[in-house]
């Protein structure tokens, strides 16, 4: 289970990248589809923020791609990894990841250079959004093997989507705080994060036990029993609850507009720069840790015999 750390890192970083992209990309897509909601043209700060968010997405995808090599025993042969797109979801996953990364890179370049035809950048980024969603779908399908009953359940795609959305919303909120300052302007991201973490807790409570964490095997099998540590399930829930507490605290502080009086925020304000509060950082770290625990639990559900 622990030796799957490259896959834990790859899936979480990849899902977070898709999540961040969707969090900043969906409003953009809506503004194209419904021009009336577009509002005034973006100022320099918004433009800089958009570039920063896209750079974060690219950095996460690059880190994910790099870490994925660590689970290969012959990484130099990986150039052939796209040769079985016809039947292998692993090939498709890498195809969509690379496609997503290329489209985001192109969209970033077009946005950054402020082309006269801004529509082209938007079109590229909307296409990238679809590629990102397909990346997420292929990642889920890869694990939903008919021959692995404990993975072939609704919890697999649900947990992947929740990881993407939760970490995406929180990382976006954090980056906005760092780059343009906190405040009430993007409070919706904090409210959304609180809601998503709460949903993730409910989903984990309801579905994870049937996922093979507790109880008997899902069917007769020639595989050894899962070696997963059940404490990881409890740990994940505790970390999510703690994360929910801190992000709720931050959201409430901003709702009541007394953020300056938040002692926890005050301590970090100078150090981080433009106002990432300690409670938001803590919430992000706790939720990230819960995702890591949950993912190790996931990989621990399937044990390989032999070495």
């Amino acid at each position, binding site marked *: 289970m622990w030796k799957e750390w490259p896959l834990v890192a790859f899936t979480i970083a990849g899902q977070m990248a898709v999540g961040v992209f969707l969090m900043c990309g969906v409003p953009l897509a809506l503004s194209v589809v419904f021009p009336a909601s577009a509002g005034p043209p973006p100022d320099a700060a918004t433009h800089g923020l958009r570039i920063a968010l896209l750079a974060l997405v690219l950095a996460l995808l690059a880190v994910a791609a790099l870490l994925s090599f660590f689970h290969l*025993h*012959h990484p130099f042969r990986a150039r052939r990894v796209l040769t079985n797109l016809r039947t*292998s979801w*692993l*090939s498709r996953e890498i195809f969509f990841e690379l496609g997503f990364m290329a489209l985001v890179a192109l969209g970033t370049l077009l946005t950054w250079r402020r082309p006269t035809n801004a529509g082209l950048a938007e079109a590229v980024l909307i296409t990238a959004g679809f590629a990102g969603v397909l990346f997420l779908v292929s990642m889920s399908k890869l694990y939903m093997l008919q021959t*692995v009953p404990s993975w072939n359940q609704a919890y697999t795609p649900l947990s992947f989507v929740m990881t993407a959305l939760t970490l995406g919303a929180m990382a976006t909120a954090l980056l906005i705080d760092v780059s343009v300052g906190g405040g009430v302007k993007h409070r919706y991201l904090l409210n959304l994060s609180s809601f998503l973490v709460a949903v993730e807790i409910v989903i984990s409570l309801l579905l994870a036990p049937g996922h093979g964490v507790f109880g008997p095997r899902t*069917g*007769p099998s*020639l595989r050894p029993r899962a070696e997963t540590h059940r404490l990881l399930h409890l740990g994940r829930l505790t970390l999510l609850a703690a994360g929910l507490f801190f992000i709720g605290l931050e959201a409430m502080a901003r709702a009541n507009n007394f953020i300056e009086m938040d002692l926890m925020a005050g301590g970090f304000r100078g150090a981080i720069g433009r106002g990432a509060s300690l409670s938001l950082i803590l919430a992000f770290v706790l939720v990230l840790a819960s995702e890591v625990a949950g993912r190790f639990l996931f990989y621990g559900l399937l044990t390989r015999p032999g070495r």
Partner: protein
Amino acid sequence: MVTQYAFFFNAAACSGCKACQMACKDRNNLEAGVLWRCVYEVAGGGWEKKGEAWVPSVVAYNISMACNHCEKPVCGLSCPVKAIWKREDGIVFVDTDRCIGCRYCEWACPYTALRFNATTNTVSKCDFCYDAVDAGGTPACVAACPQRALDFGDLAELRKKYGETRQIFPLPDPSQTDPALVIKPHRDAARAAERAAEVANWEEV
């Protein structure tokens, strides 16, 4: 011409001596911890009250299992680099020069036939002793069995000879991969699930 080679396993005859396992290991020079064929010892049950007496009600039998060279080889379908392929005679091969060692096929195979070989840093599995078979010989495991519990041949012929059974507890649902396998069940196999039987020798397989 053989269109799909297959193994036959007689669970009623197998004594669990593991000669098949050792013959395979010996022929293929497999290092410690790598088994292309292994013998699962299935055991379960306990004491049962009959009238005023407690009597033992146990199940115990063996399953000798290797790659079943499935008609729907999920290992090959999952492989991102097409390192696993099927010959015209149905034998499923791993091309270790092409394998990237992602080990995804190990997850996909419900028979745990694919085993990681730390020497080559690739997965490996039973190749049906194809060179011996091509020369008119017999796979090492089949030749080694003192009970004649293993046989091989064309799947259609084996089905005519031994019947259609291809699943006993705790083998997975055969519709997942269409294994080229014919089994003669042990008499205890039908009661194994209700006796909560389980593989008893995980440390050996």
